[in-house]
């Protein structure tokens, strides 16, 4: 059996990758994907703990997170499309003002 620490290490690596991608990348789509990466990093640690302690609540939480992430993806992509239509760019450094 794979020890818990390996799962957690992988989860941490995934999360840090997400954070770094969020901070470094300029494209909104990439940033969006970095967020998903962070969420799934967290999900991994949830299921790892659930398996370790034989508790279902961790699994249930993961489903919640996936549902919220799906909804967030829908809303987020809609916002990205709206931003692209008005500004014709997906570079976040150029989207620093609320007013046009």
């Amino acid at each position, binding site marked *: 059996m794979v020890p818990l620490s390996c799962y957690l290490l992988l989860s941490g690596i995934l999360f840090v990758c997400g*954070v770094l991608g*969020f*901070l470094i990348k*300029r494209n909104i789509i990439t*940033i969006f994907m970095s967020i998903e990466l962070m969420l799934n990093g967290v999900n991994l640690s949830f299921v790892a703990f659930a398996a370790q302690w034989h508790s279902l609540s961790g699994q249930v939480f993961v489903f919640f997170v996936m549902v919220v992430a799906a909804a967030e993806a829908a809303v987020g992509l809609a916002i990205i499309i709206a931003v692209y239509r008005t500004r014709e760019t997906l570079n*976040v*450094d150029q*989207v*620093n*003002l*609320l007013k046009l």
Partner: protein
Amino acid sequence: MTQNPYLWLVPLLPLAGAGINGFIGRRLSKKTISAIALVFCGAAFGMALVIAAGFSSASAPYYCDLAHWLRSGSFQVDFSFYVDQLSLVMLLVVTGVGFLIHIYSVGYMWDDDGYYRFMSYLNLFMFFMLTLVLAKNYLVMFIGWEGVGLASYLLIGFWFTKDSAAAAGKKAFIVNRIGDFGFLIALFLMIKHFGSLDFTHVFGAVQSLPQETAGAGLLTAIGLLLMVGAAGKSAQVPLYVWLPDAMEGPTPVSALIHAATMVTAGVYMVARSSAIFDRAPMAMMVVAIIGTLTALFAATIGIAQTDIKKVLAYSTVSQLGYMFMACGVGAFSAGIFHLMTHAFFKGLLFLAAGSVIHGIGGEQDMRRMGGLRLYMPWTFLTMTVATFTIAGFPPFAAYFSKDEILWKAYSSPNGSWVYWLIGVITAFLTSFYMFRLWFLTFFGDYRGGPTAHDVKHESADAHAVHDKHAQEGHDHSTPHESPWIMLGPLVVLAILSFVGGWVGIGGRFEHFLAPVFQSGLTSELAHQSSGEAAGKATELLLMLISVAAAVLGFVLAWALYFRRPQLPARIAERLGGLYRVVANKYYIDELYAALFVKPLIDGSTTILWHGIDQGVIDAAVNDSATAARIISDDARHMQSGNLRSYAGWVAAGGAAVIAYMVWMGVTH
């Protein structure tokens, strides 16, 4: 004690007049304004007469409690009024002379744009003055005291567009504040030690203090502080400086406030507090010394003045000095007697001077007058009565009152021949400078107005101005007599100045006031009975000497200003420095400016303004604003709108929280 429920109407009537004229006078015609002012003031006079007619020593004093004011534990002050013999005399003088001056003002101020304002202020002044004299306790008196100061400020600075008038108003007010400070402290002392400000209570408490310790501190302190107040209000050394400057106001103001009524408030207050002063011999002595010094000092300044109103101003200061001299030697009734006659003749002098000024188009310099007896016979006649009165010629009014003061100054147990001697010298000086004024103004040739040469070369422009003036009755070239509305009060006052002193013959006036000055009178009587026969002869001798002094003043003025008009200038030249010092009022104003005013202004500028106001208060506000701006300037960069920097902050924050939790977990 008898109640008189209508007493409060006396002061309130002029207040109503002041209110009506002050608030809606701008929209009323001048006739209506005059009617309102005169009716309300006249009604107060009428009520005073009614009160006087029903006055009897048996039922006096009368009082009227209008309303509660302050109630704090056992200490209470009410709005209550009070009439005894002393207030009655003051009441009649204030309303009577005040009413005459109101009538006179109608003629004098008719052409002024601020006519309604002037009449309103006059009525307001009457209200405060009547509050002062009718007060039943020191605090209500203090309302009147401050109020006349306010009215005085408004009236002195009546022509406020003129810098000197505005400055004179301020000066009067500020100098009065110094006196008020003393008065107020005296009131605090009374509250602390007697628990009351009511005259009856306070005087009762004073009487019951043990004889040995009474003068040892408290009463002397109260007396001296009251005297500080009186010196401010009544223009005594060293606070007299405001009165001569106050001549910037219109002449009726000088007559009403700075001769007949307001300046006498100090004398009234000292006389009212006679119970306190009687038990404080030190304070009495200070009062007498201040009065005597002021009398002499102001009289010497009066000699060298050339402005007709300034001469009268200094003579007022000097006469007030006499009154304080009288109060200081315990002869309160003599002081009040002189106060009354002074109100008549000084009111008359000012009004007559105003008539002169009015008649020659606003000129106040006596060197540009002369020969006016031909142009304005009535003014001349009334002024003559007033001049002979103030000089102390028998049987004019001031002869009786001044003689009474001088005799008391010599004979009373608190008196001394020094007071008497200075008093006689002052009488001589008074007679001299008043006759100097009289000769300069009414005798010789008219020295004002344009010469024939000027008239010929007058431009068309000047002609137009001249015509306008002639229509208004202000022709400069030929002096003219004033209208009857101004002469009427002059004549009435002249009659009063002539006969006003006769009420004092045989000590009747003193007898009338005796119930008020009970304690003073007993010592007086004791003294009189001791040396009755010798006293009579001495009194006669002293009387002759003071009359001789008056005659001497007259002769000297006659010789210098009538027979040899060139002589005074030569004498002034020979005296050189001395003359300049006197003509410049001993440089007292300059001395005060250097000693008090300039340090005050410099201190206020460097310490209070630049130091505290700009350096501390402004700096605190400005610096905290600057600090907020600098901090915000940095904090502002956090909120750049840049998504990635937000994310960075969130990540950093998250990292910090995790680090903290890990660290806490480790330490536990």
